[in-house]
């Protein structure tokens, strides 16, 4: 003990008095001896103090029944408080980088940036009585840049805010703001520590809509030794989620959401199935200077003008054609802002507004095997739109497998997504400028390392390839590198 204290003193002295570095060994030795003597004197003082009557009275008789009772009461009270009030949190600090500035939900740039994959959540849960509880989860995501807000990339939202009521031991109803449980890890999309990847496979886990206002019913039941949970959910999402960049804003609100998922677990296996239906109200605002042709471009075909008509900024009258022509193309534009500078409609500075609604049927199927060391998980989802106005009909899937060796978990993922609508159909019907017939595959290799039991660090190399529409800059091959640090507390 004394030796430890000496070390501690040495460390403290080193820290406090840099000139000490200039001292000789003998001088240090002498100082240590001095410090040791001081510590001894303090210890003697403490021993004397313990013998004094005051100490006896106040602390020494702590085993006395009265004091013990008081302590027990305080302990019980603290236990109760703890039981009624829970605070939990999670965070991910992520750095990502790709071959090119691909932006997107995760704000992936061609240089290492912190942000897109970073997030932090804080959850407060209070027990109201034996049956009722209230929970709020606030989430700050560093993905504002990807949403066209580069001035303040941190976006805070209440992803969960609900009142729960335990109807019976097996049935719970929750009302308020909840996560949409489309996929296996949809509800913990932002809790990096809870899943194996740096982020759930982007091919499936698009994050335009993550929460809704409504209610769900959770029903737990067992069939033999199969533990099953049924989750019925319904609601709408009044808040608008922006996608794309500053030039192309698409917000979508969700209505008439009805869905059911079933999760069955037996031994090392978990199987999950989900079916839902919802309608989407889409609002799009496209900056007109991005849809107007460049100066000098032949616009005869675009606006049904005499052959050889070249677009010049002076030809303001074509702005009027613009709206009409686009509407003729099957796109249902509602209004067009007046440009403050040129005084013309739909020229630079203006936004072209349009809206559309659509109805979706959404299905997903997932399975997971985990024997403690080896795990395999796979999901497939199908989105069927009625009119393909905002999204396209899509199929997405992934399969991940990994193996835990002590605190290390190497894993690999393969993912594939493809649209099932033709380019011509989308061009004529879809108002979302970012939706083009698309298909891509990706393969990833990652490694997770546990740091204690509440933190991990993950590195992942993600290679996307086989794009249906190769990029002008990175072609048919895009590498994304990510490193994340996850914690739960």
């Amino acid at each position, binding site marked *: 003990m004394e030796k430890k204290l000496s070390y501690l003193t040495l460390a403290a002295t080193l820290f406090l008095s840099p000139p000490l570095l200039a001292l000789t060994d003998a001088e240090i030795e002498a100082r240590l001896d001095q410090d040791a003597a001081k510590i001894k004197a303090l210890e003697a003082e403490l021993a004397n103090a313990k013998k004094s009557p005051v100490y006896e009275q106040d602390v020494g008789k702590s085993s006395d029944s009265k004091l013990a009772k008081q302590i027990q009461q305080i302990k019980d009270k603290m*236990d109760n408080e703890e*039981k009624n009030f*829970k605070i*939990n949190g*999670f965070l991910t600090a992520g750095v990502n980088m790709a071959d090119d500035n691909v932006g997107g939900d995760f704000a992936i740039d061609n240089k290492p940036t912190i942000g897109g994959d970073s997030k932090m*959540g804080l*959850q407060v*849960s209070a027990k109201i009585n034996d049956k009722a509880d209230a*929970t709020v*989860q606030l989430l700050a995501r560093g993905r504002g840049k990807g949403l066209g807000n580069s001035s303040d990339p941190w976006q805070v939202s209440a992803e*969960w805010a*609900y009142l*729960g009521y335990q109807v019976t*031991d*097996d049935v719970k109803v*929750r009302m308020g703001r909840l*996560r949409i449980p489309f996929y296996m890890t949809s*509800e*913990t999309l932002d*809790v990096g*520590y*809870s*899943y194996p990847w740096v982020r759930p496979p982007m091919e499936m886990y698009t994050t335009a809509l993550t929460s809704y206002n409504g209610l769900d019913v*959770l029903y737990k039941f*067992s069939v033999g*030794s199969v*533990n099953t949970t049924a989750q019925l959910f319904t609601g709408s999402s009044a808040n608008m989620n922006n996608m794309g960049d500053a030039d192309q804003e698409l917000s979508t609100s969700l209505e008439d959401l009805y869905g059911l998922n079933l999760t069955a*677990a037996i031994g090392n296996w978990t199987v999950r199935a989900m079916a839902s239906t919802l309608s989407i109200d889409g609002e799009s605002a496209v900056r007109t200077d991005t849809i107007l042709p460049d100066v000098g471009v032949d616009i005869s075909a675009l606006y049904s003008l005499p052959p050889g008509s070249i677009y010049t900024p002076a030809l303001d009258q074509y702005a009027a054609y613009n709206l009409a022509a686009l509407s003729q193309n099957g796109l249902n534009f509602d209004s067009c802002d007046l440009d403050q500078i040129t005084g013309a409609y739909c020229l630079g500075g203006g936004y072209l507004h349009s809206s559309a609604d659509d109805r979706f049927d959404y299905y997903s199927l997932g399975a997971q095997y985990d*024997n*403690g060391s080896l795990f395999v998980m796979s999901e497939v989802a199908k989105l069927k739109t009625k009119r393909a106005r905002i999204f396209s009909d899509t199929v997405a899937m992934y399969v991940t497998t990994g193996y*835990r060796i002590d*605190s290390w978990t190497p894993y690999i993922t393969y993912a594939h997504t493809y649209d099932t609508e033709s380019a011509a159909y989308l061009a004529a019907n879809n108002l979302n400028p970012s939706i083009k017939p698309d298909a891509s595959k990706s393969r990833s290799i990652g490694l997770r390392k*546990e740091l*204690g*039991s*509440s933190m*991990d660090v993950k590195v992942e190399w993600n290679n996307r390839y086989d794009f249906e529409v190769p990029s002008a800059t990175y072609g048919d091959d895009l590498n994304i590198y990510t490193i994340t640090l996850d914690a*739960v507390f």
Partner: protein
Amino acid sequence: MNTQNLKLLSAFILIISSSVAAAEVKVIANSNVTDSGLSADVIADVFLGKVGSLPSGVKAVPIDQDEGSAVRDEFYSKASKKDSAQLKAYWSRLIFTGKGQPPKSVADDGDVVAQVSSTPGAIGYVSGGASVGGAKVLMTIP
């Protein structure tokens, strides 16, 4: 692979696992718990919040040990094949979806015995050598 090889292999695995295995864990319960012959899987399900009641219908009250204790790691690795990190990941999936909170935990074997003895339906686990006082031993996990 023929049967002889398989036998040899399993013998080998047994030897390895028994030499690696540390202390045994005793699962104890309040005297009002009448269930007998419960499997380690059922006990694990109780501690993981997967089932709320025992087969006899008694509402189970799991009493956990604090994170970082050796007997806790031992219990979960044997009963549920989860190490402390996997357990944390498991609970974060429930906590942050509002689907559950981990059981109440106490500091050591003595506290577990005290809580289990005085709480109807309580189930706890202690290290093999611990005295169980007024609680009854449901099973011993080697």
